[in-house]
């Protein structure tokens, strides 16, 4: 193996000290001269006709600068289905519907103005259950859409499931469900919009997609009659993304509209309660799963249908079935697969992307079902998984090309660390679940690319402009470490500038665990161009051909004769301060050779896939139904760990998020109203709930990854819930098929089992 100096090193997050000492600027900290504060009035009903909005009293309040209602704004449509508008006209379809927006000289006045706006509603019958919403006579959420079922046909059938069902020796068929959970970003949402004198827009906003947000805002300007304008998106430091910022939202458009009307910068920042009820959740699902295997344990088919609660509007979240297809068709070798999913409008909050993008829901159903199939067929659960494990060189039914695959190793390692099942202590059990996820980008958009610009100064230091969005996950470290490695510099020599669309090149966004792979390769490409140029320059000075030169310790030198060397800064200065001087700059745009899914949903969506196996040892209190996790092991094949501490951080954080998903977290809805919009009653786990986690990694050195790396942003929370559900079954013989696995559900299942046995 190469002797690496920066890649693979445990280098603390570049901005860790600034964050710990409060020096970084979040959206909450940013103040612009003359800035006004915006607030949003939300609906009082889950479904109602807006009869009248009276803003006359609010307008008279001193300090109020603008009040907008749906009638005052142009037709700006947003969301993947273009069914949402910044302010609603005609009717409201959920409690989080924006009815009016106010800009005032301070937030308190804006808030007071909201209380003076009189909205008259005529309540309409609501629909809150997606299955009921599919019925013919159900109230329509969007009348013009004619049905509550979204016209997005998520449907595939590879092989022949019906024939396979006839040939199968063992088969299981079950229904699973998952509910709403939310990202719980510590930094709440916010945006500041500002127009210059010629109506070019600058917007500071918490986003994971600066370049796509720019495009959305340009369309909004167009709808406002502002053609051919510029939009600059600046992303301040974000306190957590987890997929919540993969779309543009009403509040961003409202800050733009209010700024346009007042000619002042307008800031909208969410409070915590607002963050809970007015941002989007993970999709609740109802999942019917059938799987079967032959007498040797080989999977013959998988047959899955799902209903997803879309909520009242459509965000990218409605496309999560496209990612659910990945585990459904390609987690383990399964030749015959059928899948159908329907996203259904309801008067609930609308769902969005959230870490895993559908994969946690689908994997919960598949991997719970795998254990049930193991029991039915008499195979050991891990043996059944080994028999069917993906292998390098496989092409899955969805045409995914598995280039590297450490699934076998992960299964073995987790089993080794958690021990064999027997002898058993009462109430204690172990359970496992595996995962597949995109690890080499994901072509969901026309481009899956990312650009990098490197600019070197006279002292051998680098300004690196990347399209990548750091949101705490460590994109900044990752690119710095890769570039430092390639150019023989210290990581501290690389200053990373990210997320300002005026300065940084295009990137499709921080999603799909793609940043390390795509932005890493992009940075590497730019560094290679710089390196070639430096070798070129040094070659003349050292009188040696470029092929025998290397860069290390801020020097360029002859590999076999390190005494023949030049300090990089010196070399750069020499070329800068000479006749026809030049400075060293390079740009590189990397767009992986992955494929968009076709009409049949086939296509190698990612250059490589990340695999992993999780396992939990749990103890179930049979009197209270409480589940305690004694030990958790999360093994992943990550290609190469660019930075092991950040990698472990991703896995630990993912696992804790997954445990919350499995056991405690849920947004409680009552007829569309969120009953627990606060950290007191939304049970995200705390530092004191952290369980012992081991995170072994397997480096399979993917040929396409930067230094062999694959993505690891999402996998940590993907197979957590099924691993725990399987462990609970192993411990006490009850199968919980609905998330979260609350003590009440466990105790109810225990009682039902006892009743059945007696």
């Amino acid at each position: 193996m190469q002797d690496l100096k920066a890649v693979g090193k445990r280098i603390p997050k570049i901005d860790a000290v600034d964050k710990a000492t409060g020096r970084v600027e979040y959206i909450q900290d940013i103040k612009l001269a003359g800035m006004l504060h915006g607030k949003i009035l939300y609906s009082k009903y889950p479904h109602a006709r807006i009869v009248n909005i009276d803003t006359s009293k609010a307008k008279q309040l001193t300090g109020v600068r603008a009040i907008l209602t749906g009638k005052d704004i142009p037709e700006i449509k947003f969301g993947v289905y273009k069914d949402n508008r910044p302010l609603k006209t005609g009717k409201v379809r959920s409690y989080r519907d924006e009815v009016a927006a106010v800009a005032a000289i301070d937030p308190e006045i804006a808030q007071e103005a909201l209380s003076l706006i009189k909205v008259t509603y005529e309540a309409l019958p609501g629909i809150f259950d997606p299955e009921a919403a599919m019925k013919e006579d159900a109230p329509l959420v969007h009348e013009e859409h004619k049905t509550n079922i979204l016209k997005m046909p998520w449907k595939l059938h590879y092989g022949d499931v019906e024939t396979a069902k006839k040939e199968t020796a063992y088969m299981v068929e079950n229904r699973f469900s998952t509910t709403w959970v939310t990202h719980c970003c510590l930094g709440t949402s916010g945006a500041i919009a500002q127009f210059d004198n010629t109506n070019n827009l600058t917007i500071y906003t918490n986003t994971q997609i600066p370049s796509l947000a720019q495009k959305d805002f340009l369309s909004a300007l167009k709808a406002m009659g502002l053609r051919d304008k510029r939009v600059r998106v600046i992303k301040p430091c974000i306190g957590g993304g987890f997929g919540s910022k993969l779309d543009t939202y009403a509040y961003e458009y409202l800050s733009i509209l209010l700024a346009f009307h007042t000619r002042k910068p307008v800031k909208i920042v969410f409070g915590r309660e607002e963050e809970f009820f007015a941002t989007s959740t993970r999709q609740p699902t109802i999942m019917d799963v059938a799987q079967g295997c032959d007498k040797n344990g080989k999977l013959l088919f998988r047959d899955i249908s799902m209903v997803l609660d879309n909520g009242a509007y459509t965000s990218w979240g409605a496309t999560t079935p496209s990612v659910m297809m990945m585990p459904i068709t390609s987690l383990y070798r399964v030749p015959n697969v059928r899948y159908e999913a329907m996203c259904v409008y309801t008067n609930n909050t609308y769902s969005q992307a959230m870490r895993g993008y559908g994969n946690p829901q689908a994997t919960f159903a598949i991997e719970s079902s795998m254990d049930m199939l193991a029991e039915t067929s008499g195979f050991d659960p891990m043996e059944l998984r080994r028999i069917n494990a993906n292998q390098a060189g496989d092409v899955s039914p969805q045409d995914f090309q598995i280039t590297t695959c450490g699934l076998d190793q992960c299964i073995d390692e987790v089993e080794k660390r958690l021990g064999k099942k027997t002898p058993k202590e009462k109430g204690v059990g172990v359970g496992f679940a595996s995962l597949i996820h995109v690890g080499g980008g994901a072509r969901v958009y026309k481009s899956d690319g990312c650009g990098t610009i490197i600019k070197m100064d006279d002292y051998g230091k680098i300004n690196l402009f990347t399209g990548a969005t750091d949101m705490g996950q460590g994109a900044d470290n990752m690119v710095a470490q890769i570039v430092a490695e390639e150019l023989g510099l210290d990581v501290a020599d690389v200053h990373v500038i990210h997320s300002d669309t005026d300065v940084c090149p295009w990137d499709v966004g921080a999603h799909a665990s793609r940043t390390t792979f795509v932005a890493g390769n992009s940075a590497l490409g730019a560094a290679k161009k710089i390196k070639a140029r430096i070798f070129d320059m040094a070659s003349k000075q050292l009188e040696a051909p470029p092929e025998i030169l290397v860069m290390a310790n801020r020097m360029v030198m002859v590999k076999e004769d390190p005494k023949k060397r030049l300090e990089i800064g010196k070399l750069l200065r020499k070329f800068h301060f000479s006749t026809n001087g030049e400075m060293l700059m390079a740009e590189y745009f990397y767009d992986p050779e992955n494929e968009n899914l076709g009409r049949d949903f086939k296509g190698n969506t990612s250059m490589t896939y990340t695999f992993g196996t999780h396992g939990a040892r749990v103890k179930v209190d049979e009197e209270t139904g409480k589940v305690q996790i004694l030990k958790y092991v999360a093994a992943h094949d990550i290609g190469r760990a660019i930075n092991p501490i950040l990698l472990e951080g991703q896995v630990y954080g993912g696992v804790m998020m997954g445990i919350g998903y499995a056991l405690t977290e849920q947004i409680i809805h009552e007829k569309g109203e969120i009953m627990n919009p606060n950290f007191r009653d939304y049970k995200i786990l705390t530092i004191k709930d952290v369980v012992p986690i081991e995170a072994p990694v397997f480096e399979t050195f993917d040929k396409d990854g930067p230094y062999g790396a694959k993505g690891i942003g999402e996998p940590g929370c993907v197979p957590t819930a099924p691993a725990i559900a399987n462990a609970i079954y192993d411990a006490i013989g009850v199968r919980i098929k609905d998330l979260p696995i609350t003590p009440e559900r466990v105790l109810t299942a225990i009682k039902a089992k006892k009743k059945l046995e007696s």
Partner: protein
Amino acid sequence: MKQFAYLVPRSLDEAISFHEAHGDRAKYVAGGTDVLVKIKEGKILPDYLISLKHILGQDRPLLNQETGELYIGSFVTHRMIEKSAIVRIHYPILHDAIRNIGSVQIRNVATIGGNLVNAVPSADGAIPLITLDATANIQGPKGERSVDLARFFLGPGLCDLERSEILIEIVVPPLLLRTGSAYIKFGRREAMELPMLGVGVLLSLGESSVTCVKARICLGVAAPTPIRALEAEAFLVGKPIDGGTLEKAGKIAAKESRVRDSIRGVAWYRREMVGVLVKRMGLKCMERIKKLAQ
């Protein structure tokens, strides 16, 4: 958030006179972890906050060696109680409860008196103190008075305090020999949690170390106020204590509880858990008595 004036009296008398001067426009505040949240949420809108935390002599729980009474000043922070060796060794039930309130940051500023006068059904501070037969000392414009803490709570958010009165001190009477006590906060996570149920049990045994001579069972979130499970207590007195009797006592206590459905927990589950947890806390009391004897 509404603006207010912040008043800093140096004595209880001064605090009371401030309150009398401003009446309903004023609100006492100590740690502020409840009061400020309520102001932020617009639930109360005082023009004056009268701070009690600068009043001296309220820095730690004190044991009166002669009488055996434990005195806890109302403005003592939870963290001080948690760190008190006297409390940890002799009043483990209080330690059980206090160390699991909120987070370290909250316990550093929140006071025990604040926890009590806030009078929420889930108050973790109240249950162990009622279980210990504590008395509340109150000072007001008309002078001082005492009230049994078990009678202090009148309803959710309501306690036995007249206008301008201040809860100044909690007094815990001496413990009988061979006494064990324990509290469990039953929730869904380990910190920043309101209990789904709070259960405090105290048992004192006779000379034989078998028969119960005194029993206290106090339940939080099982009714609009903290309640004692009197029938279950009466059932235990005079009986030899073992798993069987405690299980029966738990079942009686479960029947006495007036639990209800809420987003934090359903009634059937809470009721059932009263039974399980009373038994478990009873067993823990027995363990602690044994440990004391050694």
